[in-house]
Structure formats: C-alpha cells, structure tokens
C-alpha cells in the first residue's frame, strides 16, 4: 500500500509523519508528473483551500485527481481538504473537486480566536482528540454521505464510500486512529 499526499501548500508533512508511524509508504504530489507514480489512496491536507484549489488547477492536477476520486480512489481530506471535496460551500461561490454530497461552511468558527481543541466521539472508533484551526464544519450531508462525528451540534466528520473528511486535524495530535481508519479504507478498496 502506498498513499500520496497532496503537497501544494499547508500541513502535508504532518500527514506524512503519521503515515510513517503506521509504516505506510507515502510520497508528495506537487505537479502533474508526480501522478505517474502508483498509489492506492490520497490525502488532501489542511492549509488554505483557495491556495490549493488555485494551484491544483494551474498545475493540471484538477482533472486527473477528480476523475480518480470519481472512479473510487480512497481520499481523505482534512479541513481545507474537506472544502476541496465538498459539493457545496455555503459562504463561498468557488467549489473544487465537488465529489462529496456535503454542504460545508468555511471559517465556520470565525477567525483564529475561534480555533479550539476538544475531544469527541468519532464513528465506531470512540473518543478522539480534535484540533480545529479556523475550521469549517458540515452543515448537511445528503445522498450516501454519512456523518461520523459532531461537536456542539455541527457535523465535523463524514464519509461517503471512498471519501473521508474531517473538519479537524488528526495529523496535529498523537492519536493514530483516524489515519489507521483511512488506511483500512485504502486496504479494503485495493483488495476489491
């Protein structure tokens, strides 16, 4: 198993370190020729969605990645990554891959003073640490998308088939369980 990490801008190294701790090989995607490598899953990290969205279009990454996700490539988006996958962003006209049936709210907790840490239940995993940095949340899920975690009544994690998103940053805490959960998704997709 090999997982690619979109490394255009943001906290991609942190994801690579989590994968390393799980003994999963990874590599960075910074431009189109990096897609020639074989990989079984993709992580879209936190950062600024406006920057990543612009760069992936200008570097000709948009179409091939969108197509791969639509064909079933397991993908995990954190924070900005969630916004890149959302079909709708309530307070932003720009959408990006738009492959996941969720409506997100950008900067939903306000500016940096609204950033916070908490612990909450996640799907079947149990209580996990959650760090929110100028984070979005999910207002609604539709279609086959399913909410996996909620904080103060707002959805902060969801899954739709091969797509997993969190509004928080599991790569910033020590807990490996979310990355392990995604690795299991990748494993079961590649065994199909």
């Amino acid at each position: 198993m090999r997982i690619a990490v979109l490394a255009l801008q943001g906290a991609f190294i942190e994801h690579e370190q989590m994968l390393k701790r799980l003994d999963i090989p990874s590599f960075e995607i910074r431009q189109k020729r990096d897609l020639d490598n074989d990989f079984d899953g993709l992580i879209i990290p936190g950062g600024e969605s406006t920057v990543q969205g612009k760069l992936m279009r200008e570097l000709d990454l948009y179409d091939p990645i969108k197509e791969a996700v639509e064909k079933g490539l397991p993908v995990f988006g954190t924070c900005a990554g969630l916004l890149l996958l959302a079909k709708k962003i309530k307070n932003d006209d720009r959408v990006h891959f738009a492959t996941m049936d969720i409506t997100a709210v950008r900067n939903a907790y306000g500016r940096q003073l609204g950033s916070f840490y908490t612990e909450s239940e996640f799907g079947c995993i149990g209580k996990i640490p959650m760090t929110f940095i100028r984070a979005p949340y999910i207002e609604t899920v539709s279609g086959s998308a399913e909410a996996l975690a909620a904080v103060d009544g707002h959805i902060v994690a969801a899954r739709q088939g091969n797509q997993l998103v969190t509004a928080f940053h599991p790569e910033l805490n020590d807990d490996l369980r979310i990355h392990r959960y995604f690795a299991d998704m990748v494993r079961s997709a590649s065994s199909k």
Partner: protein
Amino acid sequence: MENNRFELNKNLAQMLKGGVIMDVTTPEQAKIAEAAGACAVMALERIPADIRAAGGVSRMSDPKMIKGIQNAVSIPVMAKCRIGHFAEAQILQAIEIDYIDESEVLSPADDKYHIDKTKFDVPFVCGAKDLGEALRRINEGASMIRTKGEPGTGDVVQAVRHMRMMQSEIRRIASMADDELFDVAKQLQVPYDLVLYVHENKKLPVVNFAAGGVATPADAALMMQLGAEGVFVGSGIFKSGNPEKRAAAIVKAVTNFTDAKMLAELSEDLGEAMVGINEQEIQLLMAERGK
C-alpha cells in the same frame, strides 16, 4: 490536553506552511493577493519600501483600514505592531486579527523589552537573525518565526544570511553532546528546554518563514531550498510592474521550489521587478532593531 492557545497558534502557522504571505495596503490589493494564491495577507498602511522612503516614526496601522482588509478576504489577516508596544497588540487582538507581527519594520516602542506574548490569545510572529533571537522570541510566546532580512530593499542578501545562520546553528546544536547544551543555553541567553528541543528535533519548535527582500520567484525558491517553510513577500509584489503575475509566480515557485525548469518558466516575462537598494546604500538597518 486542554485548550492550549500556544499550541493552537503554532498549529495555525503549520497551516500556512508552503505558502506565501503578502503585504497589502488596500482591500483591492488584498483581493489581488488572495486571487494570486496568498495563504495570508499582512495588512499595513505603507509597505516597507515606502516606510523606508518616508522616514519618521512608523506605527501600527489604522484599525479601520485593517478591518476593511479583513472584510475583503477569507484567508488569514496579519498586522504589525511596534516592538514592545503591547497596547498596539491589545488593539489588534480586540479586532480579532489572525496573527500579530511584532515587527522591526515599524519604529520600536521599547528598546529593551519585547511584548510578553504569553499574555495574548492571538498568535505572534517575530523576526530573528540568528537562533538566539529566534529562541528568545519563542520563549516570550511567539508561535512563528521569520528571518528579519532587510525589509523594503528588494535585496535578499540579509534574509539569506539570517536563514543560513539559523540553520547552521541548529546543525551545530544537533551534533553536540548532551552535556554541552547547558553552556549553549547560557551563550544564547535562552532556557535550556528550548536548546534541548533543537538538539533533539534538529529544528525550531515553531514554523520558520523567510522574510525581507524577497522580490522574485528565484528569491523565493532560494529561501525555500535554504530551509524556509514559507515566504513573506512585502514590497516585492506591489512595487513591481505586474503585481498579479509576479504574485502568482512566487506562489508556484514556493510549491515547486526544486524544479528549475518550472522556475525558469515562472521567471519569464514578469515585467519590471522592484528597483531595490543594495545593502551598502541603506541608511537604516531595520534588522538591528530588537535583539
């Protein structure tokens, strides 16, 4: 772990990595910067080149002007306060700025003490020209460091000097024996714990950006290859012939900083770069402010 502001503030800097933070003076410029791919903007009334040209005392910007920029863009907005001027910092916190730059670009308000940044909930970035300065600022509560460089000159030589100095001091400490670290702490005038962190992790405990004099995609790529985790561009963009194009090119150069072929394409046809001034021609060395 509780709701630790220092951790959350360090985390925001992590999200800015691999990005370009651009100086802007109007909402229009802020929108151009955002559209060009800036990961944050620095709101200020005058860019460093103009501060340098105007002379006189340079202060925190008008909060109204900063709010105009906050309303114009969705990316994080930073603003500068004077070194040691904690009241200006309190004002910036009151308008919910995302990052405060306690900056040598403005006239220092205190020639001895920096702001006690641990007293604030919003994050601070501070300039440093060597490891000692960086660790002293971190000890005071800075959650992000940038090289001082020499702002407003369009000359990258000082940013290079500061980044090289920091990296070589980090390498030196990383290779030292454990019992030598106590003396390093004494020499650098910083707590032993911070020296130990650098020794064990071979890096600063917070994100480290390049700043001061970056004017071209090649400058940005140079700083990234020297170990910067992202780049501030001040006067270099809006003092140039084609700000949109230059800004977008610098953003891409930071993402693909080792791909010389792409850098060559990005460097084509950017129009006039800011004229700049050489180190020997500078009257005022801003990097000497606040140590």
